[in-house]
């Protein structure tokens, strides 16, 4: 019992640091979401109940449903393609070949860049008038006139998702490659002896074995994508006509353009609640499927 108290004392500094640097800002953000907290007038900070949330949901000029749907589209499509291509990349890199480490270095390079600079690079690539992509497609004879990748409201979201997919592939590549390398080769040998083809080996040996990594990386990555407005901000600023605005970009707008910390925090709380619900549901579902498999 005495020893337990001692351990508790040893852990206390960590708890204090975590509480101060993580829980306090979190709580403070939560409180601001219910306050009239605008940099325009800091002398008038007061509790206003759910008014910030109401203002966001009832906003006539920026439809909340559209922002929510954009966020879902941005997250699901980005995650899906990042995962599939990242998995493919990891599978290709699993077996050693000459120059693999150098190749890995090049492939993983995007992950080392910051979101805002990736946004700037891709916004020039996708520029409808001077961009490289239109130029290449034009020279290859695939298109006859410029495509407004970022200026056409029907295409813009897919353009920013493309940039995000390019950025996120290395993450899955790195994580899944590490997991794949831990799959014992005798499992494959046994599967071969049992007459399994490549597809059966993939679905009955590889994927089940690396499932814990897949579950945790997909969960983490989906949260990061929701909270990754930098790219959109640099490429389209949420436009055209709000078609690429997601919850995160609206939050940035509220802070840096409108100085409205109250509504920005309300966006933050909405994101947090959505992510929390998603995480619980996701973990329950993956746990259930795991139990079914056993």
């Amino acid at each position, binding site marked *: 019992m005495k020893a337990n108290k001692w351990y508790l004392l040893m852990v206390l500094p960590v708890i204090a640091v975590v509480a101060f640097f993580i829980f306090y800002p979190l709580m403070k953000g939560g409180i601001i979401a219910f306050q009239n907290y605008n940099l325009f007038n800091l002398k008038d900070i007061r509790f206003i109940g759910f008014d910030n949330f109401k203002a966001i949901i009832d906003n006539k000029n920026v439809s909340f449903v559209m922002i929510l749907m954009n966020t879902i589209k941005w997250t699901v499509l980005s995650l899906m393609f990042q995962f599939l291509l990242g998995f493919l990349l990891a599978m290709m890199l699993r077996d050693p070949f000459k120059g693999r480490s150098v190749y890995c270095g090049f492939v993983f390079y995007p992950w080392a860049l910051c979101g805002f600079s990736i946004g700037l690079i891709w916004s020039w690539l996708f520029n409808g008038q001077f961009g490289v992509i239109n130029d290449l497609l034009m020279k290859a004879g695939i298109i006859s006139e410029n495509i407004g990748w970022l*200026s056409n409201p029907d295409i813009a979201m897919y353009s920013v998702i493309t940039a995000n997919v390019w950025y996120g592939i290395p993450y899955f590549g790195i994580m899944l490659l590490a997991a794949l390398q831990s799959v014992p080769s005798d499992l494959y040998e046994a599967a071969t002896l049992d007459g399994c083809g490549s597809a059966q080996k993939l679905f009955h040996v590889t994927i089940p074995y690396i499932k814990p990594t897949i579950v945790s990386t997909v969960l983490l990555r989906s949260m990061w994508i929701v909270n990754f407005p930098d790219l959109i901000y640099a490429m389209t600023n949420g436009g055209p006509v709000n078609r690429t605005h997601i919850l995160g970009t609206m939050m940035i707008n509220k802070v*840096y353009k409108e100085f409205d910390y109250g509504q920005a925090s309300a966006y933050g709380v909405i994101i947090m609640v959505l992510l929390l619900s998603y995480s619980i549901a996701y973990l329950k579902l993956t746990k259930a499927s795991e139990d079914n498999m056993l």
Partner: protein
Amino acid sequence: MKRLIALFCTLLLIVGAMPIMGAVAEEKITLTFVEVMTSPERTLVLEEAIKGFEEKFPNIEIELVSPPYETAETKVASMLAVGQDVDIVEMRDNSVAPWINNGFLYALDELVANWEGKDDLVEAALLAGSSIGDATYFIPQYLYVKALMVRTDILEKLGVTEMPVTTDEFLEVCKKITDPEKGQYAFALRGIGAPCKTTDVMWVTEVPEISEDNIYLTKDGTFYMDTPGGKKAVENYYTLFKECCPPDSINWGFNEQINGFVSGTTPFLVQDPDAVGNVSKSLKPEQYTAIPMPLGDSGKRYLDYGYAGLAVAANSEHPEEAFEFIKYMISGEVNARICEFYGALPVSKAAYETSDMFKLPVYKAWADEMEDENTVFTKFPLEDPRFAEYSSTVHLAAIQSYLLGETTADEFIKTCKDFWGY
């Protein structure tokens, strides 16, 4: 007696040395100066200016704080809100109102009244300094006023030698030179990044009697777009976009506009003088110029003066020394050097005489339009907290939607009018 003389001499020495001892004992003052328009090159220019100040005032030391550009304004606001030791702050026009409201800034009226050199400031600078709040809270360092920049070489090749004077002539010239098949367009549209600051200045000229206090209102309090002239301007802008601008320009910010102008794709550009700083890196002076903003049906040109300036923090312990630094920063030579870096208009009259850059023909447009009797200065309602939301979200989405043909001119005008409630 000898002792008395010795004592007297000692006393004399002590008394004589007192001022020197006092000077030695005088503490060196350190002033904290926070910049907001941070870039590595610009920070070097500021450091150079600070060095000059410290040489001139050896008892004052300036500590420069350079927060990252994107978050600088909120960072400064936080520093001021929590009463951190800040003496001088740099500020853009859009942060003036919130900072004054929050009591972050020191009222400079008394210091300005006793300032002999204030006559060296151009008139617009003094107007701007007292344009918000009940006192003078800041001194502009440079001014932004819109003018029409023109690629004279491209227009000459396309057979245009007469520069447009009216908005109707401007639209006609734009239509004449546009040939999308050859990749030739006319106008570098501002698609993102507060496009209202360009469109409103271009449109209000069609409307007579615009208020000098609020660009959105006529003198009788009508929302300007909700007038025949306003509607004409909105409709003409749609024609301008559809017939004379690259379709992609709906997503163009400052950099893309400059690129369009420099490449010759869009030889007309409505911009502030700081665009010259960027354009001059790629074009020779004989390839481009600027002309005053075209006049609309009102016969008047309503211009807004944007600005960035310096202010003293309300809780500064050394406001007088801080003001001394501001005076130094806007003195002819230093003001010229900093403005040369940007291309924005200096506030010091002496800067126009000492700097070769501001003698370039391209800057004549700004001098001409500011002196023109048809020019009237008006203001964006920066002190209204809703302006930030209007410029960054509401107007931005509404005009994109209108130009893309998703909404009509009337619907666009109604969205803007409903937002302001005028």
